[in-house]
């Protein structure tokens, strides 16, 4: 949590005002001295003292306000240095005892607690081609932390999935990156422009945001809604853009219908069409398939793939893990803090050991003895279907060995296949089955 400053900069005018009891005490002393100086002493020495005290108050307020900010900046820079070398922390500084932990969740928790993030270490030169760069971003609403110390980057032209349970801070992150809200601390740049640099308008020209609620003017038609937003971007060729956007979302036939008469799913599509109007470099999609039927969802998914093929960067927040698994090049999982970020396959490999699934006609007589005799087998368990899940150190070595062992034991093997862990399993391991908000 951020430290509380004694004084805080005034919103209007210049200078500071007290914010905590320390600030008020200093102010009271300064004001008391000023009053006493003018009423009591009435001498040049007293007046000098009064001026000196008031000046001291201003100097103390300014210096403490500035110092706290400076200290915080230094603290951030120091912590950034500890985590530097582009996400190499997870493999370099985590001590060996972490890898002795028994379950993937224990490993993940240990790494997260030490490094604050568990990032993809296999990707080089990610910063050069990044259109979104987030570093130690935090957002608080009063005493409630929406998200904390989040760092990641999004490469140009990729579909980046941003996952997390309800209340994890996904929408707050999107709002921060789209310059709707200002961050509490940390930095971020979108389309090469820092979000707190006063160039918000420039950022918004290059991005588009499809909010979870489409937010349409219900008394206006689809075309009128799109024409209004096209006008806000200052386009002179609004109609061709509107036509293209409607065609992309398959709504050309409903162009003149009032939005108030459309179903939720159709309004969602109008919202998506609106996001396509300005040919954005980066498009933020907040639950784009929410409320859509399977066919419409598929259309939207194909549209997202099409956008990626055109080089548009897609920042996708979704609850639908199957959709994320299908569409996303990389994902980040957020639960107030960032739990992980990386390619889905890499996450699976890091989170779970390789495994082989075996099913037999009848249960094995002594599976413990059978499997423990194989060098590359690290453990085994029964699965729900009556088969066996065998964790191995190397599938390519273990699979033939297991097959030979089973045949030698006279087992009637029905199937032997490499185990596959879904994104949902990764997600649940990191977030928890209940999807609790804010759990570390």
């Amino acid at each position, binding site marked *: 949590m951020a430290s509380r400053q004694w004084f805080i900069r005034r919103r209007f005018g210049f200078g500071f005002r007290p914010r905590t009891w320390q600030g008020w005490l200093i102010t009271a002393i300064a004001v008391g001295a000023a009053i006493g100086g003018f009423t009591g002493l009435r001498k040049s020495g007293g007046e000098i003292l009064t001026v000196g005290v008031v000046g001291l108050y201003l100097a103390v307020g300014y210096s403490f306000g500035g110092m706290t900010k400076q200290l915080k900046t230094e603290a951030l820079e120091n912590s950034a240095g500890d985590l530097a070398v582009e996400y190499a922390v997870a493999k370099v500084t985590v001590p060996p005892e972490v890898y002795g932990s028994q379950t993937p969740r224990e490993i993940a928790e240990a790494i997260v607690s030490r490094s604050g993030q568990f990032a993809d270490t296999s990707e080089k030169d990610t910063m050069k081609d990044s259109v979104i760069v987030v570093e130690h971003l935090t957002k608080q609403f009063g005493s409630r932390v929406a998200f904390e110390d989040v760092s990641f980057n999004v490469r140009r032209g990729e579909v980046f999935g941003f996952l997390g349970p309800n209340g994890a801070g996904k929408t707050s992150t999107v709002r921060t990156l789209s310059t709707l809200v200002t961050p509490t601390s940390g930095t971020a740049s979108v389309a090469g422009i820092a979000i707190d640099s006063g160039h918000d308008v420039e950022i918004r020209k290059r991005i588009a945001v499809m909010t979870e609620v489409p937010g349409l003017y219900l008394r206006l038609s689809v075309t009128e809604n799109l024409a209004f937003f096209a*006008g806000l971007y200052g386009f002179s060729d609004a109609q061709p853009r509107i036509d293209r956007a409607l065609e992309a979302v398959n709504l050309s036939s409903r162009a003149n219908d009032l939005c108030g008469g459309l179903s939720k799913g159709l309004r969602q599509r109008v919202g998506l069409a609106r996001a396509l109007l300005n040919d954005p470099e980066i498009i933020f999609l907040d639950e784009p398939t929410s409320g859509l039927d399977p066919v419409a969802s598929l259309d939207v998914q194909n549209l997202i793939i099409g956008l990626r093929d055109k080089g548009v960067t897609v920042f996708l927040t979704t609850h639908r893990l199957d959709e994320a698994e299908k569409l996303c090049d990389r994902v980040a999982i957020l639960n107030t803090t960032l739990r992980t970020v990386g390619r889905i396959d890499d996450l699976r490999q890091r989170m779970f050991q390789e495994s082989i699934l075996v099913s037999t006609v009848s249960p094995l007589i002594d599976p413990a003895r059978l499997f423990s005799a194989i060098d590359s087998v690290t453990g085994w368990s029964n699965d729900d279907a009556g088969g066996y899940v065998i964790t191995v150190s190397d599938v390519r070595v273990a699979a033939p060995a297991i097959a030979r062992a089973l045949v030698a034991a006279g087992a009637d093997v029905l199937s032997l296949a490499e185990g596959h862990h879904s994104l949902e399993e990764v997600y649940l391991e990191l977030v928890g089955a209940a999807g609790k908000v804010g759990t570390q």
Partner: protein
Amino acid sequence: MIRKEFREYRRNRFIIYTMGTLPLIFTALPVITLFSISNSEDPTTVRTQVAITLLLLLVIPVVLPATIAAYSVIGERDQGTLEPLLTTPVTREEFLLGKSLAATIPTVGVAYVFFIVLVVAIRLGAASIVSHAVWQPSWFLAELLFAPLLAAWSVWVGTAISARSSDVRVAQQLGTLASLPALVLPLLMSLQVFKPTATTAVVIAVALAIIDVAAWRIVSKMFDRERLITGASAVTMRAEAGT
């Protein structure tokens, strides 16, 4: 922004009906009184009655836009259109100016139309003593100057309330109440507290113009997009977070 607002007004007939009928309600009695005056009335009394009626017409640009302005920002938030709108390159000054002009222009139009219809009707149907008192350049100048200035004041007050309110109903009620102080001016003049001379009119018009421009700046600064979208004040949040 203005075009979009006008489209919405047209599609919502109630707004148009209200704009058309409210002026009639405010000015019915004084207007009827004017038409009932005969040529034998005392000229001073006639001039006083004319002043009361024409100054009451200045109530129209104050009261008409109050609820529209009060709905302008909070209404967008309630219907979910504020957030998508704020993600576009439109600045808050442009947004507020567009909203305010969209409320001011039709209000001033209604006020002018009503004034013109009234003076023409008086010219054609009222006693000549009344017609002579009404058809003075000073009244035309006053209507021309004060209608937009008073309307702008009422709109900025309503927009300021709308930008800081959390509920549409509260905003509309407060907006109507807050626009009432602007009525003090024509009321004082109609009660002869001070005489409406040309000099007074120009001075007051200049003051109102300065106030209106300053109000735009102040309302722009009051527009806290973070608070409007999330419900929490950015200043308060930064203060509590210690930044």
